[in-house]
């Protein structure tokens, strides 16, 4: 293992942490020899460290950790629920109305992020906007797949969309999440959808 607990550091230059912006969900970075060897993990996140030997260490407890064997790849994952409202305008759908959904994303198999998403580059972030983009595409596909009928009972619509989105999530790069569809709206029903369409 290439990591151990370290004393708290007060000089921000001496350690690396994930960006504090609230829209950053995942931050990954390869830490080289010339960079600070200490990383910080906050209480609302988890970090995964892939050591040079290939071992992966999960840092589930907040604190400072020293990486004594580098280069190591570190991925920070924000663990809080992501509540998002995603809409598909009517122009993107073959019906005369647009659809929007209130979706809560839960991280499922966080380790998949390390072996999947976060190996694309030496450093990068996955933001809420990026996730929303993908979710919008998934919602559109889900709406088309289930042949949505707005006249059906709302609970039934939500249940079918929930099921379909979760199926589609597994096939997307967001497969480390599951979602809970809390509500579905149509453009002729609410101002938000009209706004999204506009």
């Amino acid at each position: 293992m290439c990591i151990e607990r370290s004393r708290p550091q007060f000089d921000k230059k001496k350690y690396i942490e994930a960006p504090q912006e609230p829209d950053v969900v995942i931050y990954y970075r390869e830490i080289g020899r010339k960079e600070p060897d200490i990383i910080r993990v906050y209480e609302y996140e988890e970090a995964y460290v892939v050591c040079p030997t290939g071992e992966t260490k999960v840092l589930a407890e907040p604190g400072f950790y020293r990486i004594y064997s580098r280069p190591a790849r570190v991925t920070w994952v924000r663990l809080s629920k992501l509540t998002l409202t995603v809409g598909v305008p009517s122009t993107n759908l073959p019906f005369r109305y647009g659809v929007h959904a209130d979706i809560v994303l839960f991280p499922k198999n966080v380790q998949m992020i390390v072996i999947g998403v976060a190996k694309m580059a030496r450093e990068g972030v996955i933001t809420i906007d990026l996730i929303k983009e993908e979710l919008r595409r998934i919602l559109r596909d889900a709406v088309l797949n289930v042949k949505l009928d707005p006249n059906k009972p709302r609970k039934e619509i939500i249940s079918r969309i929930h099921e379909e989105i979760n199926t589609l999530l597994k096939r997307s790069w967001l497969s480390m999440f599951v979602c809970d569809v809390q509500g579905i709206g149509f453009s002729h029903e609410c101002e938000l959808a009209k706004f999204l369409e506009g």
Partner: protein
Amino acid sequence: MSSIVRSQLELFISSERVTIRNSLRDARAEAIEKRDYDLSASLEEIENMLMGFMPIKSAFPTPDEYINALRSYAFTLSLLSSLFRHAGISTETLSMAKKLMSITLEKVEMGKLIENAKKILSEKEYGREVFIDGCKTYVGLLVGRVKEFDRQELHIVKEALTEIFAGGKPIRRLSDLAKELGAREKDLMRILKRMPDIDPNIIVKEKYVAMKNKLKEYIEDLLSDKGYILISDQAKELSLEPKYVVDALKILRDIFPNLRIYEDKIVYTPNILANYVEDIVRESIVISYEELAAKLGIHPKLVAEMLKETSRYFSETAIIEKVLINKKRIVSWLSKIFGDRPIIFVDEVAGIVGVSSKTAKAIADLAAALSKGDIVIRQNRVIYKPNMIRILSEAIREQVLPEDIASLKETDPRLVEDAVYKQIYQKLLDFEKTVMRGG
């Protein structure tokens, strides 16, 4: 040493929390996917509880108190991971997990915590297995890393042993136990050698560990089934060398004073063995020591020795020389040998039983004494009076005395004559009755 314990426990708590949390998170994702919001809410609650489930060093006035708290938390986490592993994640197991964490947070002492945890888990049938597994995890965590266990940890070992022994053999090889607890024999022995101080019910020897009360129950069950135990059979059954079985049984005599171990080969209690032998004798009626030894699967010499003490407990069995006799059934047994014959020779009885004429005569004497006069012994002849009377009755009618009765008359005229007179008297009585009835 306490610093080793401390770091070990801290490491365990931190890694175990992550492991449990990951499985809870997976379960929660699954619950969300299935839209089981009650379960997902419970999972979230437990996950949050788990996040803060670590004693804070600064909250304890002394290092010892901090280590004690670490012990409690580590023990509870062992139980939690065992609970989820054995019974899966459900609202039921989550509620138990919540209770377990709550009692730990109450900062009760370890003994009380163990007791309460056991009580909570025993509500379900899988609880025992969960408890053993949790204890095993905890013991495995420290065995080999610390030279000696703290008294509280020894209590956990004791509980683990009690549960392990509750569901299996009452005596186990140390090597098997080490495998079961995931420890090296040497390390385990170092820990276990202090166990008898904690619980005198536990026997810890170089090669085996036993629970006295369980062993007693086990032996009692075997004895009630078979009346005696062959050490060699039990050694095979328990996968132990016979000398260790004998050793354990000798120690067991502290609480089982009636237990006899004869020549390290056979185990019995005189009263139970007496009942068992009496059952055999009741069935066979007359049985020699050799036959009994063959039935018990031991040497006749051993039978003789064992019966010296055991015979005091016999109620309906007599011993003549080296023959056991059921007193209640000896007369009918002998009468069957007679068949229709009035006289047999002692040698015939000797031949049937397989004993000397002297012993056979003694058996016949006993039968005679118990027969209320039906059986009479005259030198080497055994006379069965009911048969003799029946034959004499015919002889009076036909006026010819059979050869064997005639021969008996020569040696013992009084006996035959008495019988003849009795028969004549009987016939006269019968005649008188017939006349009186006017027939």
